[in-house]
């Protein structure tokens, strides 16, 4: 009988190969990949020192926010190292977009981050408008900002529930879903769908504001602040919550910049980088709002920062409603779009950070290359820095505080 490495055994473990004994199969219950290590890092990770063991968290774990698999190397309750394994939700959106025409491509980007779909439409639409040199009507821009900020609130409200759920609180997730459901119903009245809105068009938006949307929005705005504050009161003063989230997963500014972080996760370290101000687009330069920042850079700061952003979004919505101009909602464009050959890069500030699209046109009706940059993808890799040294209970808390959405991570 020849000697077999763990990799050989693992390759046969799932089959009914009689040559593999039960003891050997039992050994392969470790989540060691059934092939030789590809990089030094992988080889280093899959080597156990004394007292360490692997725990395979996901892809069916109750709280990995989608289908994420994290291989944890733990020593007792302490996480020594971890290796996120992606790709369970990979759909090849970029390739599909390159095989669809410009209008169809927006449909594909829509379900990338199903929590905040409007932002996934916004950046490709802006990139295509740059390619086409289209001026978007002002009313359309106002409607975009209005709908986008509503979606941002919905996303942040859901974040609150998720974060609390991963810390063991049962109630906030349902309260935040009440908030989100109201916004989503509102957006359904505006866009026609609850989740994958597909509302932004190249050169404008799909439909004008209607009565149902406005009445729902008015009802909600009158009670939004008090309702959101009351929901947060459960967590913000809760000693257990605060003690768990404070000082957990701390990132300093230099590391955050080094890890290419953007959005609330970067602002929680003290950098007031917000694409809406740093590189203004749409009508944001005309609006009056603040960029909340915090300096702690821990999970609590990230949570509180998002709660502050909800208030700023409410301000923006208020201004949009007050200053909404009349006019067309679509620029005049041909039915079939053939931009001149060229390149365009458009970035927007989403609820999770900077969504960006890099589109290359070759003069046909399909984008030659469409690169989609998703903030969740970039933020998820920081767990490799934040997690080691923490306890298993905190892995989910840290991951939730970074607020990744696996649809966007896996593209």
């Amino acid at each position: 009988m020849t000697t077999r490495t763990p990799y050989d055994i693992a390759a046969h473990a799932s089959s009914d190969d009689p040559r593999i004994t039960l003891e050997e199969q039992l050994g392969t219950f470790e989540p060691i990949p059934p092939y030789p290590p590809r990089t030094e890092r992988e080889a280093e990770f899959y080597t156990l020192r004394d007292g360490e063991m692997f725990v395979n968290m996901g892809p069916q774990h109750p709280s990995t926010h989608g289908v994420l698999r994290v291989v944890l190397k733990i020593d007792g309750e302490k996480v020594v190292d971890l290796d996120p394994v992606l790709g369970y939700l990979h759909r090849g959106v970029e390739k599909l977009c390159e095989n669809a025409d410009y209008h169809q491509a927006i449909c594909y980007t829509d379900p990338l981050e199903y929590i905040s779909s409007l932002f996934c439409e916004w950046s490709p639409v802006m990139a295509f408008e740059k390619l086409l040199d289209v001026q978007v009507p002002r009313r359309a821009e106002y409607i975009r900002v209005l709908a986008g900020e509503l979606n941002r609130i919905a996303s942040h409200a859901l974040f609150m529930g998720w974060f609390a759920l991963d810390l063991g609180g049962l109630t906030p997730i349902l309260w935040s879903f009440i908030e989100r459901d109201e916004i989503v119903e509102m957006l359904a009245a505006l866009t026609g769908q609850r989740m994958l809105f597909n509302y932004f068009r190249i050169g404008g938006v799909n439909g004008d504001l209607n009565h149902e949307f406005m009445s729902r929005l008015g009802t909600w705005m009158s009670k939004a602040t008090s309702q959101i504050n009351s929901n947060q009161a459960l967590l913000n003063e809760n000693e257990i919550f605060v003690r768990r989230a404070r000082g957990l997963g701390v990132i300093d500014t230099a590391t955050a910049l080094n890890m290419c972080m953007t959005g609330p996760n970067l602002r929680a370290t003290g950098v007031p980088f917000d694409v809406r101000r740093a590189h203004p687009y749409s009508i944001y330069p005309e609006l009056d709002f603040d960029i909340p920042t915090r300096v702690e850079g821990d999970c609590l700061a990230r949570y509180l920062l998002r709660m502050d952003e909800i208030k700023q979004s409410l301000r923006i919505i208020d201004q949009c409603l007050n200053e909404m101009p009349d006019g067309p909602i679509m620029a005049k464009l041909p039915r079939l779009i053939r931009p001149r050959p060229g390149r365009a890069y458009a970035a927007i500030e989403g609820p999770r950070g900077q969504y960006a699209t890099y589109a290359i046109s070759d003069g046909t009706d399909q984008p030659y290359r469409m690169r989609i940059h998703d903030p969740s993808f970039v933020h998820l890799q920081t767990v490799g820095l934040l997690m080691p040294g923490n306890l298993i209970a905190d892995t989910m808390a840290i991951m939730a505080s970074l607020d990744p959405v696996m649809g966007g991570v896996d593209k």
Partner: protein
Amino acid sequence: MDRALRRRLEARFGERLTGPVRQRHDETEIRIAPGDVPEILLALHDEPELRFRMLSDLAGVDTGSAMQVVYHLWSDTSGDWLRVIADGLSRDDPRAPSVTFLWKGAEWMEREAYDMFGITFEGNRDLRRIYMPPEYTSFPLRKDFFLPDDASRSPGGGVRPMEQTHGPTNAEAEAHIRQAPAS
């Protein structure tokens, strides 16, 4: 549009740029050779009048004849996006230096570019496939990788097996694709 940035870039890098500095809308674009990537990006990152501290995006591009790596940078000294195109990587064996020494966060983006285009980033400590399964052998975002239902562009009206689409370029098949009418 920041005209000063163009002058600064031309003055600083001059000879190293392989193409003219282009500016359109709010984007500034420079082209460099892949070998110069670490040096130029380090200069862009560190020098006080440039200070491009944020790497917004890292993308691979297959132009059909060569590979590119495209970096998008942002700096607080100018409001523009700076697009750095490392052009002219060979399609057979695309290799580019990694920028993980500057931005550790580029690691996964480089892994993605490797997974999708097969671009090898020298210096990335963990360059393995990130989306596709490890036993997968093709590079899906290359332009000679066709979707199974995209039969009209495939030679012979059929579908080429996915596994044949990577590796050494088949010049004959390539020519056939280029000539095939886009019916």
